[in-house]
């Protein structure tokens, strides 16, 4: 093959222009591998065309203008510190919140308990008072029971009189210590301005002796009244008298009367 004629044909210029067929391109490629002078010719043609075309460009454009868009094959920037959940921090916060909530709850519980304690203490004091009262009542009742059971006691039932037949009372008389115990449960409360008055009577002749008025009748709980009596009484009576009492009993207001039975 005549290399010189081949060069002079102008095919290498068309090769650089990129206007040959695929077969021609392949053929020239093979020839270029075998003939350095052909390759040299191609390099010179290419260099001349590169310079000519570059001369048409009004300005150069820096490579950096496209560098950012070559990303796909660039080494991927690996985040050295991948965002990982900061469990220690989260756990700390959670613990703090739990602790605060717990403290508040405890404080609240404490206040509640203090209030409950206060209530219980109040209840306790009230109960203690009641127990004390009960003890006192019990002692009084026992005392009364002892009085009534005393062998020296004389029991005198007082029956209802006249219009007041439904009334009744009892006198327990201890001659040893000159005391009577009037159980007036069967009498109504004294109306306003009136007061019950107790009388000791001797029968022949009929002589009443006042043993006094019962001023606290309406407020007394057990209606048992302790009254001094040094008389040789043969009977006892209870009348309703004006406040302050009377010198002699008002017979129309005699509610109950009872005679002392023969001395045992």
């Amino acid at each position, binding site marked *: 093959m005549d290399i010189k004629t081949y060069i002079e*044909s102008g095919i290498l210029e068309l090769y650089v222009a990129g206007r040959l067929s695929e077969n021609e391109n392949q053929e020239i490629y093979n020839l270029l591998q075998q003939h350095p002078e052909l390759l040299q010719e191609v390099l010179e043609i290419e260099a*001349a065309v590169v310079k000519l075309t570059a001369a*048409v460009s009004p300005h150069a454009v820096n*490579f950096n203008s*496209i560098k950012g868009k070559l990303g796909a094959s660039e080494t991927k920037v690996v985040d050295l510190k991948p965002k990982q959940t900061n469990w220690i921090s989260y756990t700390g916060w959670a613990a703090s919140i739990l602790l605060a909530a717990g403290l508040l709850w405890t404080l609240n519980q404490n206040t509640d308990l203090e209030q409950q304690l206060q209530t219980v203490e109040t209840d306790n004091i009230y109960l203690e008072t009641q127990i004390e009262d009960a003890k006192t009542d019990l002692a009084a009742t026992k005392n009364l029971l002892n009085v009534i059971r005393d062998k020296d006691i004389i029991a005198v039932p007082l029956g209802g009189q006249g219009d007041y037949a439904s009334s009744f009372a009892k006198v327990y008389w201890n001659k040893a210590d000159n005391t009577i115990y009037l159980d007036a449960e069967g009498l109504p409360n004294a109306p306003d301005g009136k007061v019950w008055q107790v009388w000791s009577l001797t029968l022949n002749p009929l002589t009443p002796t006042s043993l006094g008025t019962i001023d606290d009748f309406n407020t007394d709980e057990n209606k048992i009244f302790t009254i001094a009596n040094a008389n040789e009484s043969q009977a006892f009576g209870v009348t309703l008298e004006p406040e302050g009492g009377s010198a002699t009993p008002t017979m129309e207001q005699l509610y109950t009367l009872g005679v002392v039975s023969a001395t045992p």
Partner: protein
Amino acid sequence: MTDLDTLVMQFQNKNQVAFKKLYDMYSKSIHGVVYNIVKDTAIADELMQDVFIKAWHKADTFSSKKGRFFTWILNIARNAAIDKTRSKAFKQSRQNLNADYFVDIIAGYDNLDDSTDAIGIKKFVTQLGEKCKAVIELLYFKGFTQKETSEELQMPIGTVKTRNRNCIQQLRDMVL
């Protein structure tokens, strides 16, 4: 194997340093080619950048057995630029497309720089015969085939090849 072959192989292995060297060697030429077609600096800038980005992403499709690297990228550039001129938006914005040849553009630059190349090329284009201007314009800038050029210039097909050879030889004498 030439240094250029090595660079191209590295480029095909996605070596950005090699690609930058190829860009520095050819980007101004590609810019010139697309600018000669679209006649708009901003569009030419964008097209040239797109061409090199496309080349980078399609690097594996290049084969030296099918042609020169410069020729490969020159083809991509011409196709991209011609596609651009066919787009509706481009046609509407450029109703009166300047019909200047590359020689008129080069001649229009008032001593852009005083490098040997620039002086030589300017001298070349001013002395270049009309037939040479047309042949080079069609074969290298417009991508016409030998047959298309012969029809366009009403010149026997064999004459296109030899005349082009003579024109390029004159260029080599001026700038190499």
